[in-house]
Structures are given as C-alpha cells and as structure tokens.
C-alpha cells in the first residue's frame, strides 16, 4: 500500500512534532510512508471564511499531490472533513469536472489518523507508552463530520501507563472554529472558558485531541492561565 501523510499547513508551520509522530507511528507499524513535498494546505480556512474561489487552486494542488496514493493519512479531523466534504463541492462550484473526479477519488482514500489505524490497519494497540493522566476532547469535525466515534478512545485505552479520564461536556465545541476564533473572539473565548473548566475539573495533566487547531486554541488558553495542563496531539501520544 502506497501511504502518504498529509501533515496539514498548521502542523507543517507550527506543530512539526505532530507530523513527525505520525510518520514515526506509521513506520513503527510497518509502513513506508511518503510525505510528498508538493503538499501545502487543504483550503478549509478559505472555504469556511467565504473564499471558495481563492480555495480552488489549493484544492487543485492538493488533489494533484495525492491522486496516486492508495491511502492519505491526515492527523486532523477537520482537514480530513474538508477533503471529504468540501473539495469536490468547490470544484463543482467552478465547473471543473476533472477536478471533481480527482477530488472524489482522493477523498475516498483519505483517512483521519484514528480511522486509518482502526479501520484500515485494524490496530488499537500501537505499542505506545505514556504514563500520564489524560483527558480526550473529541473535536467537532471528528465527532460530527467524520463520526470517528470511540476510535481515538480505543487507541488511547491501549496505551501503557495512560490514565484516561472522561471530559465533562466533551462533545461541546471548544470555541475555535477557524477564523471564528478571531472574528468572534469574545464568544470564542467564552466557549473556551467552559472547555478549560471541564479540562481542569478532570485534574488531567494532558488534554489530547486529534486536531492541532483546536489544541492550539485550548492550549493557548490553558497557557495564558498558567494552569500547567499541556495539550498534546493524539499522534504524539500514540508514537511515544
């Protein structure tokens, strides 16, 4: 199986450890992954902020980059959802039939990390060791657009030393929402406050999720308040 990793632009620029962990984890599981250097960004921010026309060349670049792979693994529920639910639609809006076809093909072969591990590779025990008290935040797009369900929790429960505690109101949004976090910063912060209160009530040392974007938001808040609670991506725990 030709497996590629789409790291996402955020991971590439700000959270390289998430990308490295994804590569290491897949290698440890016996896959010779590739990271095509032509990759950049899925264009989700553009589409969701009202700029589908500007997103079109990003979609095209993404589809051209990943067309020939049998599996594309993405350490982000949100970007996976954009690829699966938005790419073909953007291409369709601008009447590019070839791109629609390509986007649909790439979408079929694209997996969020936990989906790839559990559904494609059929593993839940990836041989990780992470001796910490951890709470899991199911990000909205993983939860409601991909329906990853309990896949991440099943993976986390097999990690040696890891103490997984339930997050109260886990399925409520952390308030990130892409450019929402800036355009509606006050509402975003109010939502973040409740999410942080939930995380702190678990007395976990680490808040884990499958999206670096939501983690950047939650982690930025937890850091501002000097809580001492860290945010860590699922890939980093599974690779450790």
């Amino acid at each position, binding site marked *: 199986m030709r497996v590629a990793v789409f*790291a996402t632009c955020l991971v590439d620029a700000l959270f*390289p450890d998430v990308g490295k962990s994804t590569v290491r984890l897949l290698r440890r599981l016996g896959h010779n992954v590739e990271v095509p250097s032509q990759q950049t*960004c899925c264009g989700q921010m*553009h589409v969701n902020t009202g700029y589908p026309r500007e997103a079109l060349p990003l979609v095209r670049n993404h589809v051209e980059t990943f067309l020939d792979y049998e599996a594309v693994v993405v350490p982000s529920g949100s970007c996976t959802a954009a690829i699966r639910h938005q790419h073909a639609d953007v291409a369709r809006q601008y009447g590019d039939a070839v791109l629609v076809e390509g986007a649909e093909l790439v979408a079929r072969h694209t997996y969020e990390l936990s989906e790839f591990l559990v559904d494609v590779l059929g593993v839940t025990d990836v041989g990780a060791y992470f001796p910490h008290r951890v709470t899991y935040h199911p990000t909205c797009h993983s939860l409601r657009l991909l329906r990853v369900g309990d896949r991440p929790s099943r993976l986390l429960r097999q990690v040696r030393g890891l103490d997984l505690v339930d997050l109260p109101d886990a399925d409520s949004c952390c308030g990130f929402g892409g450019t929402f976090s*800036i355009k509606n*910063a006050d*509402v975003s*912060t109010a939502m973040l406050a409740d999410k942080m209160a939930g995380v702190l009530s678990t007395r976990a040392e680490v808040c884990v999720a499958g999206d670096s974007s939501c983690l950047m938001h939650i982690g930025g808040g937890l850091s501002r308040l000097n809580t001492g609670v860290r945010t860590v991506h699922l890939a980093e725990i599974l690779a450790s």
Partner: protein
Amino acid sequence: MTGHLSGPPFPEAARKALADTQLRRNLGRATSTIRAKRAAAVEELPDWAALREAGAAIKDDVLANLDRYLVQLEQQVTVRGGTVHWARDADEANRIVTRLVRRTGETSVVKVKSMATHEIGLNEALARAGIAAYETDLAELIVQLGHDAPSHILVPAIHRNRAEIREIFLREMRDVDPSLTDEPAALADAARRYLRHQFLSASVAVSGANFAVAETGTLAVVESEGNGRMCLSLPRTLITVMGIEKLVPTWRDLEVFLQLLPRSSTGERMNPYTSMWAGAVEGQEFHLVLLDNGRTATLSDPRGRSALRCIRCSACLNVCPVYERTGGHAYGSVYPGPIGAVLSPQLTGVEHNTSLPFASSLCGACYDVCPVAIDIPSMLVHLRAKAVEAKGRTPERAAMAAAAWTMADSTRWSRALRAARLGRLLRGRRALPPPLSAWVRSRDLPQPPRQTFRDWWAGQ
C-alpha cells in the same frame, strides 16, 4: 427595512450579551434542561431517522411545488368561507392586517404567539394605527410587559428567570396581588387572571400558524398553554399571518410533523394543545395573510432554500454553543441561533445581514438535531461566500487572496515559512497586529518551532 430581521453586527451585540452574567446563567440552565429532555424524547422513537427523512422530503416537495400548493390552499380556504390575502413584504402584510382590524371598529387585538408577526413588526405597525396588541402566550406576555424582545423561537422569555418575571408582573400588571411570590404556580395564576380579562373582552385575534394543509385548507397551531386556543376560538374575527413555506401537501403529512415538532422543541411526546380549523367557523370571520417577505428570494437559491424546511422547533438553538452564551438578542432578528443565522440573512438579502453567517464555530450540533435535516453548517459556509461577495474589496479579501496564492504552490509556501520564522524572532509577542491581536487577548500563541515539518522531512 420594516420588521425584525437584522440588527447591529453580531460580534458587537454578542460582546454586550456576554457581559450579562445573569443572562448566561439563565440560558445555560434553560438550554441544558431542554437539551436533555429532547434527547430523551428522540431516543425513545426507533424510527426517528426515518421520520426526519420524511419531514425533509415532504418539505422539499412543498418547496419544489409551492406555486401549486399555495393556490390549492387558497381555493380550499376560500371554499370554506375564509378570505386569503397575499403580502409581498412586511409593509404590505402590516397594511392588510391594520385594514382588517380597522374595519371591525376595534382598537385592540389579542395575539397568540406568532413568529411571523414579530418578523414583520406587526405590533408596532398596529400601535401606529392606534390599535393595541395584547400578547397572550405566557412567555410573550412576559416579554411584552417587560418592554423586551423575544430571545428564543419557542421560549421567548428564556433570558428571564422567576425572580425577574415576578418583578415585571408587579411593575406592569394592574390589580396584581402585591404579595406575589416567584413560585411558578403563583406567577401562572397572576398571568391567568390578567389574560382572562383580555380574552373575554377581545373581539379580534391575530395568530400565526405552524402548518397549513393545502389539500383541505386546514390551519394548525401547536401550543402548550391553551391560551392560543382561547385566542383562536373566542374572538369574532380571526386573522392568521403565515409564511408561505408553512404548507404541507396533505392531511396525512401532519402525522410526521406532529411527531417531529413537539419532541424536537419541548422534548414532549405530544404537545398539550393542537388547534386546527379550516376556513371560517360559525360566528367567526377568518382571514389568512400569506407572507412572502424574502421567502421567494430564498427559494431561488438552490444552496440556501432548504432553510425554508424549518418548522421553528428551536432544537438548533438549544444545542448551539454560541446561542447558549450570547442569547437570542445578539442576533438582532426574531430568528436567532443557527437557523436564524441562515434564515435571517436570506430573508433580508445577505448584503443587509453580513455578520450573521459568521456567528458560528461550525461545530455541527445544529445539523445533528434538526428534525428536517437542514445542513446549517454548509449553508452558513455558502452564505459566508455571499457575504464576502457583497462586501466587495476588503483588506481581508486581499489577505486571503495573498495567502491562497502563497499556499497554492509548495515552493512559495516553504519560502513564506522561512520568512515567517525570521520575522517571529524579531517581533515581540504583545505588539501583534490584527487579526492576531484578537487571538492573544485570551490565548497565548504557540512557540514557533526551530524547524518546520517539511524541513525535517527533507532531512530524512
């Protein structure tokens, strides 16, 4: 623009609402209670998914054949002694209702809760004509006596708690018992005494409608208190104002919606009162005002029209993390919350409501609970694009175009990443320009890494 479909920009209005801690407590408590009730009521129906699909399909059929069904409805209502009026917009609807009330010689009307009449600002229009409108739904009464605006589709006074309601009653109701407590039963009793007088003296009523059956000309009002039924049946003249999308084709279709609506809205298996009538009943004159007010324009957008499936259950409000924190007033429209964020801009034209499509984190909770499967998040994204188009050339647009140009090509992107790393070393954290300044008000920025992921990979 007449009526209540737009207000100040959402971020501004939301900031004010967020500062009201009492409001946030009231809303948090109310929405979490109703969320749990809805979940339980939906859970117990094994065929919920099929019902939801049926609801969506019936409404889509209505929307695809609206011209035919509306004419059929008009015929059926007319045959049964009612009079049908067509209103293009809020002003025309207000003129029709005012004229009808004036003809009776009355100077007051009683009203059963109606979103459509709030949408068009009917009470204000009637007041300008010297006609007093008395709201009879308990929550609407609280809102009206408090000189306030509804903040929820189903629970218009959701932003008020018992203590506040007691204060409003003591201040505004004539002859109220000064020892009134904030016990719900005592408050309801005070309202009952107050309303009874209105019911017995009114000879004109104005109502909305939840459904209209094209096949039979039947109108249906779904409610909990029975005040609506008093309104519908006691006065000699009944005027119903209804959006043109409220149709169902056949009597049988009601079966689907009378299951979907109460379970989604109040979390009940069945609502206490469902009043239905066709045409004029004996001793009563009946007028039906069919309101367009932007609905036909909404219908013309294939990506936006399914908002017209909405049956005003407000399940999406109750699960929305944004609504839960800001309340309904921040939306500036009678239709708040997720459905309001897609419906209000379409009814007014997106150019008059450019901030509402952005009043969502796109978390998707609304779509999950919608009983007619309106994909609100996708529609928000679509309306955002329309709002961007309407705003023309903005600095944001230039920045987005520049970002897209950079990111569409990996060479340009990696060059930009290197430039950004250098820039970060030189720049202090506090003096960030917008939009990053909005980020760092409540959140730290991540420490920039020494090496990007692509540079690490290149070294592998």
